């Protein structure tokens, strides 16, 4: 159980990163970004090509992957989303399906559909905590997730631009009055979401095993469930939600380890949690009741 708790928190933090990207984009442009996972997957592919094929250090490859994902997301916002200001939000969401399909097709074209394996950033067993080995990758994950979480929280709450990002959805006029340009907010949220997704995917991929175009989409379920815990708009709630979903996922898997008649319990538990959150607290665990 100790290992389930630790890996739950680690994986949960990663879900939280993806959820954070979804929530920021949703706040900034009221669009559900359905290409969130595939954008990050592209980053993993780039990192894989640089690390495993070109033999570069892990960090270099990873940074290039994150930069690529951020760039794709930024370009999509500039070229497509910003030109669809007046379109129904659903149509923009479908355009993100197009982006996802485009990225998948690109990945298959360049790297084929065969599974690829990305190595751990740091190999080795790692120290023992609660009677289980915590791998260096897990420790690195925790550090990165915590640094990003607290760093972004500070940035969003303590800087003018960050406050502008938080306010843009509710009060565009006030946002412009304090000197924050709306287009910058939108471009920023999309770019950040692309980077966060790639970071999350890079951290989680080594423990999943092989990856190929489209195979990481399952991460959408816990990430969306996490975003729901934050009422879709609350960044800290989304982060907390990520940890909750990570724990549910890992603990339930641990319980059902010997049960063969019920496959896919992790996804099932998260799906159930999703429905439960909507039934009991649709405004999110931290959110205030909306009118």
């Amino acid at each position, binding site marked *: 159980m100790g290992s389930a708790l630790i890996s739950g928190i680690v994986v949960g933090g990663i879900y939280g990163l993806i959820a954070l990207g979804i929530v920021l984009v949703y706040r900034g442009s009221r669009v559900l970004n359905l290409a969130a996972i595939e954008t990050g997957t592209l980053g993993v592919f780039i990192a894989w090509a640089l690390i495993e094929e070109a033999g570069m250090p892990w960090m270099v490859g990873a940074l290039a992957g994150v930069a690529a994902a951020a760039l794709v997301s930024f370009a999509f916002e500039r070229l497509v989303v910003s030109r669809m200001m007046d379109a129904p939000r659903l149509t923009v*969401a479908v355009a993100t399906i*197009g982006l996802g399909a485009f990225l998948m097709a690109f990945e298959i074209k360049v790297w084929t559909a065969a599974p690829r394996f990305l190595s751990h950033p740091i190999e080795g067993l790692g120290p023992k905590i609660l009677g289980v080995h915590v791998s260096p990758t897990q420790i690195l994950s925790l550090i990165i997730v915590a640094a990003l979480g607290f760093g972004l929280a500070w940035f969003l709450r303590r800087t003018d631009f960050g406050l502008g990002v938080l306010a843009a959805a509710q009060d565009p006029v006030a946002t412009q009055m304090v000197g924050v340009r709306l287009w910058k907010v939108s471009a920023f949220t999309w770019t950040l979401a692309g980077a966060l997704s790639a970071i999350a995917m890079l951290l989680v991929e080594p423990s999943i095993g092989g990856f190929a175009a489209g195979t990481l989409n399952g991460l959408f379920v816990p990430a969306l469930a996490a975003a729901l815990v934050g009422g879709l708009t609350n960044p800290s709630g989304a982060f907390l939600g990520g940890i909750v979903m990570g724990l549910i996922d890992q603990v339930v898997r641990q319980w059902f380890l010997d049960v063969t008649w019920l496959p*896919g319990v992790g996804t*099932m538990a998260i799906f159930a949690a999703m429905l439960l959150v909507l039934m009991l607290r649709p405004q999110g665990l931290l959110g205030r009741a909306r009118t």
Partner: protein
Amino acid sequence: MTDMVQRLRGAGLPVVSKRTRTILIVLAVCVIAPPLLARADILSSFRASVIGYGACFALMAISLNILMGYAGQISLGHAALLGIGAYTSGLLTGRLGWSYLITLPFAAGAGALLAFVAGLPALRLRGLYLAITTIGLVFFAENTLYQLPWQGGGPVMLPRPVAGRFIFLIDGDFLALILVTLVAFWWLDVNLVRSRLGRAFHAIREDEQVAQSFGIDVTRFKLLAFVISGALAGIAGMTYGHLVGTVASDVFDYQFSLLLVTFVVIGGLGSRAGVVIAAFLFGFFPRLLTALKDWDLLVGAFLLIYTLAKHPGGFAGAIREGKEAKAAKAARAGLAGDTDEQAVPALPRTGLAPAAVAADAPPLLEVRDVQVAFGGLRAVDGASLTVPRGRIVGLIGPNGAGKTTLFNAISGFVKMQAGQVIYDGTSIQDLPPHQRAAMGIGRTFQLVGLARNLSVRENLLLAQHSHASYGTWHALAATPRRTREERELDERARAAIASLGFERYADVPVKHLSGGQQRIVEIAAALSTAPEMMMLDEPSAGMAPAVIESLAQRLRELRDDLGRTVLLIEHHIPLVLDVCDEVYVLNLGKVLAHGTPAEIVSDPTVVDAYLGSAGVKA
């Protein structure tokens, strides 16, 4: 053709309507043509299955379009509903040897049931929640539902149906069956759109509050749209499964769901023909694009993004935009003389019996100490008012005084923190808005509360939602009962249009009318709900001063001839002083003063807080 019909009529033979005849001819072609062409070696097995795929995609697109296009709710996991249909049919026909036709209702039922369970938590809410839960659903179906050991965990075989000695083994034969299913879907869809269900869906898509003000139970109808969509998805998935022959757990996955959404959006949300054409094209194109080798996905995805950025409304939207631009031009030319209408036309009286008011009757509406807060702001802070039967009560006050919020508290659109609303002797503060509307509280909105994309006639039909009682089956099958009730609604709507003198605009979408005309249609629609009490939120907004005088006359008729009770928010003080029996003045969420118009204008606190020189002028 016509004289043949005449002759048939003369001979006393039954004559079917033009629509039925078209359906029968199309059906006959679908049944006869593919098997014959296949046997004549014109329709190869390959071509038949390509068309079959296209037709299956069209079935799926029709199913999803009902949910997304009509009711405006998004499913990103529709493939789960297809999958449950295919697996159900696979188990019943493949394992248990049931016949295809007997299995059909079970596949539909499975799809409907899954939609109900997954939709219930999300559809109580407004927003993207269904999109999110359906993503969870499709992964749950893929990882758990299709893998359960009682179905073997592996792929499921779906044998081709057998009818007597007639086996649908030839692809041409099975194509005939698919096409018949498609015609049936089309027919059901047309019936749905023309029923009170279709109108309710449309109203929900446009504005949930407006829908509720017409007495529509928004949660119930959203769920109904998803369940109908799920039942059709079950059948579509089953049909697809029998065409393919084997179904594994990864067939109906998340990507498949996204593909379906793409059909519907590219085809044009809400356009039956648009989504069917888009589905057929998608069915054909992956094969047409093989010339491009494996660049097809890349090119396809790029085209998708490009098309959406250029034409957010899809194919149908692009065509409609062109048409509407022309129609609007023509309408403007035709309506040019009417934009400065001289008077508010007579309000419709059909379906409304004048209500007799006893002198000592208890008040119709009592509002006691209502509090509504948004965050820290108390928009309504302990307001109380009483509306006697058969009176016109005015509610005035400066902007931000909480008038509209109080209206929303009475009709149930905002949550009250404290207080009581008693209507006709019953406490209603815990009832949902549509029930309050059904009890006889009609209202209009500051921003016109109509379905803007529907025509005047359709809006007046929509407003009578609660007056027709036929249910889902009658709507889908277009039974005589539906036809009869719809005819009654239509007669009332036409009568209302006639009394407004709006015959010319009957089929013009409301959004093309002038502000004043929209306001009149809105009041007529609110009246069509046959309310005991009418709550009017700034009816004079957007009307020319000359027209407002006739509005006063209409309001008096509402009270004196029709016996209705009116609660009126108005900024146009002369109108309030002219027609109201009593006036409440609201300021900062509290009742500042109450009395007859004469008392109000001479009340120094009122003059000070609100009226200023306006009171003196009157």
